[in-house]
């Protein structure tokens, strides 16, 4: 079974190492251009956290050819939309545009691969903007709890660091730190350019050769962190603060996305906490009210919401379950119920019906994600950031091939009580005796 055909896909590599992926889709007069750089917080050093994300911000501040305002206008004036994202594993920039403006986005991306200015005054302005971005997140207890849990889930691996960077590092970062980071990693050989939509592949290939082909590529030496397969036994993070609602977060190790275990893990997640969508835009979602944790926690009145998060990463990461607990609820009791449901998952094989249901949910999520061109552009680069495009096109067949015994062994391997981090945020103004 493969519902994601890749016959239209054209892959090509320029002499300087830039990889090009093109997918013609002629359902709407729209193109989506994505450029992915193999640099994220995973490659950052202690004391220099947040560099990748800050560089991403600076890429909108201008080059010798384009001012920041020009970059805004290039996209906005034709009704396009653009944004950029930094993750632990990658940094990406995209523009979705009316198709007759595709070349202008290629010109922009070629230019800012090498010519961004990093004006010192703008570096200073952006420092406080990023601090403000971080402070906006810090307002939420869930963010503070999650950051603390993430730090405990990794001893030294940079997945422990928030992508935004620590406040201390953000205050100490210099313009030279940022510019060196940019020059070191924004190299053709460390990038994948993906274009999906209404265009002629031959024409775009020529344009890319013309615009990017002359950019020399320096060797990229990225710091590759040592994978961490285990967690500290019984690690517990406890916090307290204002408010009435309590929060519980439980994190277990999950395999790298390229690991064969990842597919059985996806089924396990779907059953336990509901299916996660890996799509980025307009993808829709499926509820989790029939998941085991929702049934045991929310339906039984022990918590008011629960959801899980399994992301596709280069290295082993964490699968997290987040729970919001009512003021008179008890996080310790909720944790006990989470443990019961995990024990249930580890005690027997899933039925064929349970397995088929998880597969149908995944098929629906993929169908939703493929109804817009921007997501097609996203998936080409995203799958390559941790594996290859075949990972995406073969996702459903590989999921369909998972057996009940594989789900059981995966649950037993990863969902261990001595291999998890528990985070509890207790609300001070709670009415109950949590």
């Amino acid at each position, binding site marked *: 079974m493969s519902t994601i055909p890749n016959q239209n896909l054209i892959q090509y590599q320029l002499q300087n190492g830039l990889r090009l992926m093109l997918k013609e889709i*002629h359902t709407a007069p729209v193109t989506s251009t994505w450029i992915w750089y193999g640099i994220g917080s995973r490659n950052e050093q202690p004391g220099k956290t947040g560099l990748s994300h800050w560089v991403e911000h600076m890429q909108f501040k201008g080059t010798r050819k384009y001012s920041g305002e020009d970059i805004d206008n290039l996209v906005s004036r034709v009704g396009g939309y653009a944004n950029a994202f930094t993750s632990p594993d990658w940094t990406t920039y995209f523009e979705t545009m009316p198709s007759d403006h595709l070349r202008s986005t290629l010109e922009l991306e070629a230019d800012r691969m090498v010519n961004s200015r990093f004006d010192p005054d703008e570096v200073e302005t952006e420092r406080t*903007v990023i601090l403000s971005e971080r402070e*906006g997140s810090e307002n939420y207890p869930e963010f503070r709890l999650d950051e603390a849990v993430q730090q405990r889930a990794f001893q030294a691996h940079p997945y422990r660091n928030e992508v935004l960077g620590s406040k201390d590092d953000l205050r100490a970062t210099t313009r030279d730190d940022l510019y060196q980071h940019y020059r070191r990693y924004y190299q053709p050989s460390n990038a994948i350019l993906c274009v999906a939509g209404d265009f002629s592949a031959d024409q775009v290939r020529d344009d890319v050769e013309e615009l990017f082909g002359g950019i020399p590529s320096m060797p990229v030496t990225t710091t590759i962190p040592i994978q961490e397969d285990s967690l500290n036994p019984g690690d517990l993070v406890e916090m307290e603060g204002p408010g009435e609602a309590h929060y519980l977060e439980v994190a277990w190790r999950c395999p790298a996305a390229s690991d064969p275990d990842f597919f059985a893990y996806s089924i396990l997640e779907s059953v336990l906490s509901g299916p996660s969508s890996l799509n980025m835009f307009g993808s829709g979602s499926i509820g989790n009210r029939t998941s085991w944790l929702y049934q045991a926690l929310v339906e039984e009145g022990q918590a008011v919401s629960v959801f899980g998060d399994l992301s596709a990463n280069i290295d082993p990461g964490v699968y997290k379950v987040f729970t919001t607990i009512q003021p008179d609820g008890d996080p310790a009791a909720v944790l006990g119920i989470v443990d019961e449901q995990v024990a249930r998952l580890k005690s027997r094989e899933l039925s064929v019906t349970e397995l088929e249901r998880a597969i*149908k949910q995944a098929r629906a999520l993929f169908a939703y994600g493929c*109804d*817009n061109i921007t997501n097609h552009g996203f998936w080409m680069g995203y799958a390559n950031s941790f594996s290859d495009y075949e990972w995406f096109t073969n996702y459903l067949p590989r999921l369909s091939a998972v057996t009940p015994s594989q789900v059981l062994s995966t649950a037993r391997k990863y969902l261990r009580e001595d291999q998890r981090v528990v985070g509890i945020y207790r609300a001070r103004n709670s009415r109950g005796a949590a």
Partner: protein
Amino acid sequence: MNSAMPDSSSILRAEFNNNSTLLAYPNLTSPAVYFSGFMRPGAFTDPVEKRGLASFTTDMLMTGTKNLTFQKLHDKIESIGASLSIGTGHLSSTFFGQCLSEDLETIWNLLLEVLTQPSFTEKQFKRVRNQILTSIAVQNQDTAEMASQEFNRALYGAHPYANPSIGSAQSVAAIQLEDLRAFHKDNYGPDGLVMAFCGGIDPEKARQIFSRTLGNWQPGQKLSQAELPAFVPPTQAVRSHVALEDKAQSDVVIGVPAPKTLSRDFQVCSIGNTILGRYGMMGRIGKALREKNGLAYEVASYLGAGLGPTTWTIEAGVNPDNLEKAIDLLREELRKFINEPVTQNELEDVKAQALGRLPLSLESNAGIASMLVSIERYHYSLDHLKELPAIIESVSADEILDAAQRYWDLDKLIIASAGRAV
């Protein structure tokens, strides 16, 4: 999907005997469908002492029917990878969902069942009440939410829009199960229900499915017919702050009443609003607050649309030490906005963006369905998208200045913030 713009020749619009309406547009390349729509019950009729009644009733609809327990209902939806949600706003209730094309009839049948035969059990009543009360407790710690609620209280005064449709902890605690049953009986029916649909099913087939499901909903008793009370705009400026402990950032909302959505002023102000706080990196106020002064990551302006009164606001999140400075800078931008016409370059940029964005906003099934809902809600013609470019092109800088001066009365600004005590 057709690459041409949806219009009267490609949109199917059908009215049914029960006074419901379907709008359908095909995207036969998609294996999935997306639908959204609205119906009558709204929160504005909630009694003062039981605010949150309409919203609570809606939340209960998805907890089971006479034939389906909570578990069975959601099993039917989730086992086919579908989604179905219902919510309540001040003026109406909305619903939306998504499924594989093959499952559309199943989902519309379920929607009909939850709307017509909710079970309203005691167990689910207690559980949902707990969820709502906790949501209110969470909102009470959210600086953006609290600034927004404080703003609405100050601007709307005695009007029902002054209060969040979810209600307060006190009013929700006063609602009984019988209140929900009565509200459902008096307010739910097919009269005025609108369904918009886009996806991998031929519109004629969608019409047939609708006629067998929601189009076949037989009205029961006559529904209550409340009128939205008139809105009296505030007569003086208000500055208020909600103090919350342990917050790294404060949020602020500055605003005024907006023009009526179905007016020429609204079209003019839409262009003006994009210049003020939407275009590129959030327009003029983004430039002032974020680009030049580094004070905020999030800052933007919003022009509300709706059939009732709406607001025109500027919203920002800033470090508590910079709150007053940010407000001063935003006032300064507003002063410029009402004293000088926008430049020709600004106007051309924003018009070009509005025209270019039309096809992009229709990139997905959800985008098309949302556009169809707007067409029906505001009684636009099915050729609205073809008519829009001429409307956009006709807006002048003088018109924007005139409208800005009439709506942004700086002596009557409502300013609400939340965060560290000031």
